[in-house]
């Protein structure tokens, strides 16, 4: 009986919450009912859940407009090119060491773990090289590189744009007549979708190198067997998959970080929050996109 009542309550709540978006009269009824059920509401009469939903729609809509505005006609192409090359150097050269280091260890750990799993089985040992190669190309190089870059580049972008907003530098550009979304965001995105796929290739190679070193130094598999593994069953389609993932993830992490930084209001606490949000949201969406791309591409 009790569970039936609870079910009735929750389904009525759901209906009333939906009606908030349909008609004014319905929303009035809904708000009154919310009072009966003792659901916490804000000043506008919306439940916290509805406020969160509205916020989500607001940010999604603003993000789409933000992306649309980015594709404006440049005031001067040479200035955009200069900014794009600066960003390419920042993202590419600036991230090379950390990406290389992360990839070597990921490759090494993958090789050691797989060798451990193979222990005592009849699967040929050269499979370690084969697995390290494919797992780096298909999954670990694009995903780990972009997750690491979301932390390094994403937070940097959000802090840079947020700082510019707070110091009125974005306003100064706007008063000059510069299309701020295009000038500040487009070069970053072009740079990222150009340079990050290159970093991902480097990451894949470094991962394989890490696996090779771990296997040979630890005597898990012979030098020749690992090299044989790297060469067998190679499917060039996997390289396409890696590059498609890299471009999508690069776009996501850059555009989200730019969005978070561009609309910062308030002081240093809000700037810190924006920087954190840029990393967290980018990471979540990269993982979600990874899942969707895995379904679509395999």
């Amino acid at each position, binding site marked *: 009986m009790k569970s039936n009542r609870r079910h009735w309550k929750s389904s009525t709540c759901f209906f009333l919450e939906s009606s908030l978006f349909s008609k004014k009269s319905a929303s009035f009824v809904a708000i009154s009912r919310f009072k009966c059920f003792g659901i916490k509401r804000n000043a506008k009469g919306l439940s916290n859940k509805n406020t969160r939903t509205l916020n989500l729609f607001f940010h999604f809509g603003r993000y789409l407009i933000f992306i649309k505005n980015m594709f404006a006609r440049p*005031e*001067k192409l*040479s*200035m955009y090119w200069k900014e794009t090359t600066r960003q390419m150097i920042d993202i590419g050269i600036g991230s090379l060491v950390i990406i290389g280091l992360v990839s070597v260890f990921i490759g090494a750990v993958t090789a050691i773990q797989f060798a451990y799993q193979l222990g005592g089985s009849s699967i040929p040992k050269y499979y370690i090289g084969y697995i390290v190669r494919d797992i780096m190309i298909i999954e670990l190089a694009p995903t780990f590189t972009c997750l690491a870059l979301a932390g390094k580049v994403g937070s940097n972008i959000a802090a840079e744009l947020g700082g510019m907003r707070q*110091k*009125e*530098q974005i*306003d*100064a550009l*706007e*008063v*000059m*007549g*510069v*299309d701020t979304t295009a000038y500040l965001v487009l070069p970053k995105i072009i740079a990222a979708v150009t340079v990050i796929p290159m970093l991902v290739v480097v990451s894949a190679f470094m991962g394989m190198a890490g696996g090779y070193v771990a296997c040979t130094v630890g005597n898990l598999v012979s030098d020749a067997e690992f090299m044989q593994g790297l060469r067998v069953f190679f499917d060039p389609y996997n390289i396409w998959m890696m590059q498609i993932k890299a471009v999508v993830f690069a776009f996501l992490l850059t555009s989200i970080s730019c969005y978070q930084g561009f609309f910062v209001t308030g002081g240093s606490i809000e700037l810190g929050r924006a920087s954190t949000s840029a990393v967290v949201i980018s990471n979540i969406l990269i993982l979600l996109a990874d899942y969707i791309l895995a379904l679509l591409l395999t």
Partner: protein
Amino acid sequence: MIRIENIKKQFGDQKVLKGVTTVFEEGKTNLIIGKSGAGKTVMLKILVGLIHPTSGKVWYGDTDFTALNTKERKAIRSEMGMLFQGSALFDSMTVEENVRFPLDMFTAMTRAEKERKVNETLDRVELTGSNNKYPSEVSGGMQKRVGIARAIILDPKFLFCDEPNSGLDPTTSMRIDELIRNITMENKITTVINTHDMNSVMEIGDNINLLHLGELAWVGNRHEVIDSDNKLLQDFIFASPFLQRLRDAAIKK
């Protein structure tokens, strides 16, 4: 000339501007003065299009600026220069690169022409030889002058200054005022300055607009300030006992 007509601005329930109508004249230093929270910065940002008014119009000559979209505004914005309260210089660029930025972005000048123009402008704001310094390496007053140089490098028709004297010592502050006044008179431009610096009011106030709680409380020039019987103006300008004594002495004389 800039004319604003019944400008209202509301943020949520808070009415910041309650129907302000005034004119900012060409070749004059037009001041917007008032206490903190009077709506000065909002008014200046509405003038340059950084904030949209809730209602009312801003006219640049015969053009209704508020009716234009972002692309159409670019034509008028190419005739604007603005000095921000914190100077808003780009940290990663040197003084020269900051000043040259509008030339790089909007003109097809050669490198030599740009260099000549930048050096001329830096001379004019008394910053000769500071080309290769970064904003963090120069003083607050110098940063303001770099901001002015960047604002005037494209020879604008309209110059906007948001609290140009804030954070400066009285001597530097007077030099900045003098510089803005000279630029205004020599180039015959319309300058709008948002300030609560009393020296500026008495030295360069050709057309003073006093804002009080979002409404225009008084309009006049610096010569009319002392004789005005507007209590809000008197309370604001001569807030300290020292200034009150000076005013009384001036009246007796």
